[in-house]
């Protein structure tokens, strides 16, 4: 089993990340930017942005990310649980020029904490910082709120490709930490079953997995 503390050089972490936020806050652009429009050709539905995967190498640890987009319109709100169940991380996106969308993020945080507890790593993301002049959600308020609910806050611009790489890199590091803590808590012997239940699978690495994310992702932890 992948021993969390021993570096786990030849193991791969598989994480599921769910993307939540009101319609039109830029969820899709954000994730498209991150995946650099490069899609996994193994997938039948390539070239689309609802489901994306990305492979990273963080400090020698391989990570397979599966990013699940959700429909942000109110009428689909009730479907949230079927998408976020078994997620290791959630990215909650709002538009800094739209206070409404920030309220929506708060609703999601409440729901996620209630349903999934502290197991899930939360990122609150203020998107569209290129429209700083029209900001309607204050930085202080947003960051203060994030801290109060145990989430990290990020500022991004999908348009200018700002802050996105950092957001995902940071989230991955946190998910690895959570998975490692989980493994340690359960003991090496039972780690696989323990983590599998929570949705983390540690699988044997494929030799051709070497393809990694660009630049920032390879920096050491």
């Amino acid at each position, binding site marked *: 089993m992948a021993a969390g503390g021993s570096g786990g050089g030849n193991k791969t972490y*598989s994480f*599921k990340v769910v*993307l939540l936020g009101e*319609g*039109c806050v830029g*969820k*899709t652009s954000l*994730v*498209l930017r991150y995946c650099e429009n490069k899609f996994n050709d193994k*997938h*039948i*539905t390539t*070239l*689309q*942005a*609802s*489901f994306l*995967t990305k492979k990273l190498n963080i400090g020698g640890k391989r990570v397979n990310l*599966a990013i*699940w*987009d*959700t*429909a*942000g*319109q*109110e*009428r*689909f*709100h*009730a*479907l949230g649980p*079927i*998408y976020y169940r*078994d997620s290791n991380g959630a990215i909650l996106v709002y*538009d*800094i*020029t*739209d*206070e*409404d969308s920030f*309220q929506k993020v*708060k*609703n999601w945080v409440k729901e996620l904490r209630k349903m999934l507890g502290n197991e899930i790593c939360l990122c609150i993301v203020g998107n*569209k910082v290129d*429209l700083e002049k*029209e900001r*309607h959600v204050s930085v202080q308020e947003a960051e203060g709120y994030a801290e109060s609910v145990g989430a990290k806050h990020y500022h991004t611009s999908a348009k200018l490709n700002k802050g996105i790489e950092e957001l995902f890199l940071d989230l991955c590091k946190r998910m690895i930490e959570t998975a490692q803590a989980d493994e340690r808590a359960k003991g090496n012997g039972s780690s696989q079953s323990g983590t599998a239940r929570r*949705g983390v*699978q540690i699988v*044997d690495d*494929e030799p051709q997995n070497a393809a990694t994310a660009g630049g920032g992702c390879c920096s050491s932890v």
Partner: protein
Amino acid sequence: MAPPIKPKKKRSGSFVLPRIVKTQFRKVSGVFNSFMTPEKRMVKRIAEVSQDKRTYFGCLVQDYISFLQENKGCHVSGADMLQTIRQFMTQVKNYLAQSSELDPPIESLIPEEEIDVVLEKAMHKCILKPLKSHIEASLKDFQIASGSWKQLKENLLLAKQKKPQELGVDATAPDSVTIEKIRHKFVTMQKMYSPEKKVTLFLRVCKLIYTVMENNSGRMYGADDFLPMLTYVLAQCDMPELDTEIEYMMELLDPSLLHGEGGYYLTSAYGAMSLIKNFQEEQAARLLSSETRNTLHQWHRRRTTNRTIPTVDDFQNYLRVAFQEVNSGCTAKTLVVKPYATTEELCEVCADKFKVQDPSTYALFLITEETSQQLAPDTYPQKIKAEIHSRPQPLPFHFVYKRPTNLQICIPPDEENGNTFL
């Protein structure tokens, strides 16, 4: 436990089966056995052993199959049945991976990292294939008994009559020829017993939907656009049997695949189906939403007739209204709004102040942390504000001038919250 008996090269399995529907390929496959890929040979071998009751594995499988077929009442629901079958398949896989009953041993033909995939395929063949018709019939029985079949059929009929826009679709929808093509794919999908093969076909349908959307716009779509479109397509296909198909795939698919692409699109299909199943309720909720607007209306009329004059503090002539545009976010302005100015009048002011091109597509919303409520034209924003202020613990609230989502009346996040506000 029976000692692993080395099975003879039996053909009996193949002799019994041709009487059932068999493809030509299957008939000649025995002849070309030696030309098969190691994977196919192994799957075939496992399927043969699974029918040999002299082996422990064969007993396990055959007894389970007969047990399921003879004890219809042993499961409380379709999901319960599918989950126990899934569990059984996983257990049998574990047994096979460790047992010495297979000859040749699986390791001798299949590289270690592929063993699980091969075993999974073999399980589909020796467990799901013989059980397919039983599973389908049971799932349908459960559906009919619970009344959900009838409800689904009715709702599908309703949903089918809706225009794409009414279901929240904002991209070009597939035409009737494409819908027919999709239906055809679904019919093919239904004939398969392997959940993985079904999923592969289902993903082709998704791809086809994306292609239509993309061809007409050139852009890429996320879930905001795809989910409404999938709902529309499923409604147009009008195939109530897809509900159990989706359940079959979701519950029987190798759990390790549920985090992947197949799992994602199955989840979306499940979501789309639930929306359709609850279509009437959703419409009822919309109706309820307009009823609550009426209540609000009446409440204000009552207030007006009683001439209860709110205190000056609660009743300043100023009102801050946020303007929300789809592409450029929010701007807010503080406007002079007289106590008896109606929402309709305020909307006219907003249209002017925010320089809106097509005022008829905008409306005024009252948004609190929990609710989002479109205000009826004849309500009084200042009075609503006063009413909220006069509560023991006023919640933060905002008046927002924006386009209604989906150009429909906005539904509160849930009925209870929606109602408590009023």
